[in-house]
């Protein structure tokens, strides 16, 4: 009954406001922080292809539990993706509360942004647009990873990039812009690293934010191109699994021993 009254009046029987808005605000920030930092780690992981196919492959197998199991288990990757997917959905639900919900809200914000030309006001709009686009782009990618964890690898990812590169190009820009602006905004929102002079700190944070954005965009584009090249070189054998050099050497050595 008390929930009914609170839902109807907007305050509890004893006249108190709900604590839920505070929790939602906290959850939005916490999930955003996790996803932002996760994406840094994710980008470093996928970019290992720039070092070598073998290195990327060994990391992939490590994530499939190669340290603990004789046979790698892609299901472990699915499990991790499922956790990230849930956090992603929660964050999207929290973020939705802030998006413009009517034409007038959209119109007044756009006009204000164009008139005022204020950095943080414009950056929020980028965040809103990229956030909205990730409802679809992010979900599609996470669903792919959830259902095809075994396909992650130098050849599998290369093959995927060959067919889906426009999708991943859009996702790259959406993630990097949304994530870096989001982390910057988190610092402002909660007063992290504020120090004695918050204005000076913000200037520094903004510089760091753009440096990080550019770094990850360059790294992401280079990585995307690397996978694309692998996909093109490998297009005749699309679908074939990658075999690391050591494995090939072992097979070769075994064959030569047999021949000898």
């Amino acid at each position, binding site marked *: 009954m008390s929930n009914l009254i609170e839902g109807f009046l907007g305050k509890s029987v004893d006249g108190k406001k709900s604590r839920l808005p505070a929790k939602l605000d906290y959850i939005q920030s916490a999930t955003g922080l996790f996803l932002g930092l996760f994406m840094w780690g994710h980008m470093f992981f996928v970019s290992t292809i720039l070092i070598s196919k073998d290195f990327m492959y060994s990391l992939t197998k490590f994530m499939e539990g190669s340290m603990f199991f004789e046979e790698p288990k892609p299901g472990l990757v699915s499990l991790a993706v499922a956790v990230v997917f849930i956090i992603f959905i929660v964050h999207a639900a929290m973020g939705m509360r802030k998006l413009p919900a009517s034409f007038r809200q959209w119109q007044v914000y756009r006009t204000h942004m164009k008139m005022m030309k204020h950095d943080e006001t414009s950056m929020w709009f980028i965040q809103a647009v990229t956030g909205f686009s990730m409802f679809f782009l992010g979900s599609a990618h996470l669903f792919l990873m959830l259902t095809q964890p075994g396909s992650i690898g130098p050849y599998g990812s290369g093959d995927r990039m060959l067919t889906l590169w426009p999708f991943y190009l859009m996702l790259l820009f959406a993630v990097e812009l949304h994530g870096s602006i989001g982390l910057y905004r988190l610092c402002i929102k909660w007063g992290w690293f504020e120090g004695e002079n*918050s204005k000076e700190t*913000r200037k520094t944070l903004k510089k760091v934010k753009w440096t990080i954005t550019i770094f990850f965009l360059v790294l992401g584009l280079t990585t995307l191109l690397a996978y694309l090249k692998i996909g093109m070189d490998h297009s005749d054998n699309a679908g074939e699994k990658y075999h690391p050099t050591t494995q090939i050497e072992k097979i070769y050595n075994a064959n030569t021993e047999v021949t000898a």
Partner: protein
Amino acid sequence: MSRTVTIKALKYNPNSVVSKPHMVEYKLEETEGMTLFIALSKIRETMDPDLSFDFVCRAGICGSCGMMVNGTPQLACRTLTKDYDDGVLELFPMPAFKLLKDLSVDTGNWMNDMSKRVESWIHTNEEVDISKLEAPSDPKIAEEVFEIDRCIECGICVAACGTKLMRPDFVGAVGLNRVARFYADPHDNRTDEDYYELVGDDNGIFGCMSLVACEDNCPKHLPLQSKIAFMRRKLVALR
């Protein structure tokens, strides 16, 4: 060497059935140290007596002459025409407030409502005996309270806020700053729970999207970003 400045202003009377919003262009000779307020006064005296805009003190103290200058909310009395290289100033009334006419908006009633909403007065059960000396305040705390209390209620933080424009019920930085002012004041006996009841919702502290245009445009350079972050941390931590 003086130059000609161009002032473009929105003219509209929402209370008139025949008035249609339109831009009017005025050209006038720039004088040394000319503020936008001086330019507008000259326009009203010599070109257009019908042009409405607000002012009282002409010195950046009363907070009456806020308006959008080339898209940015500013005090007309503290805006120098010489700072605009092309000599063109496009003026709009401040959004978010009730438009009275042309560049004149009703900030007074809005501020009054906001003050009531955040219960902008000292809450204490102590009886004050005015025949006795007031108990001394800690200078550091007093300084902090005075620093936040420098707000002149010009409404620029409200007009600069994209959140406020999208969500008219948002309390705005001025309201949150006011809460922080009483929070810092040891004379006020309100608890975190009490402040939560005032601004602990999506129209209050949790509605702020940290766009910081409030702080970046505040003519009194108030630390709005820090104060809002501080209140957010305090009210989120409540169980």
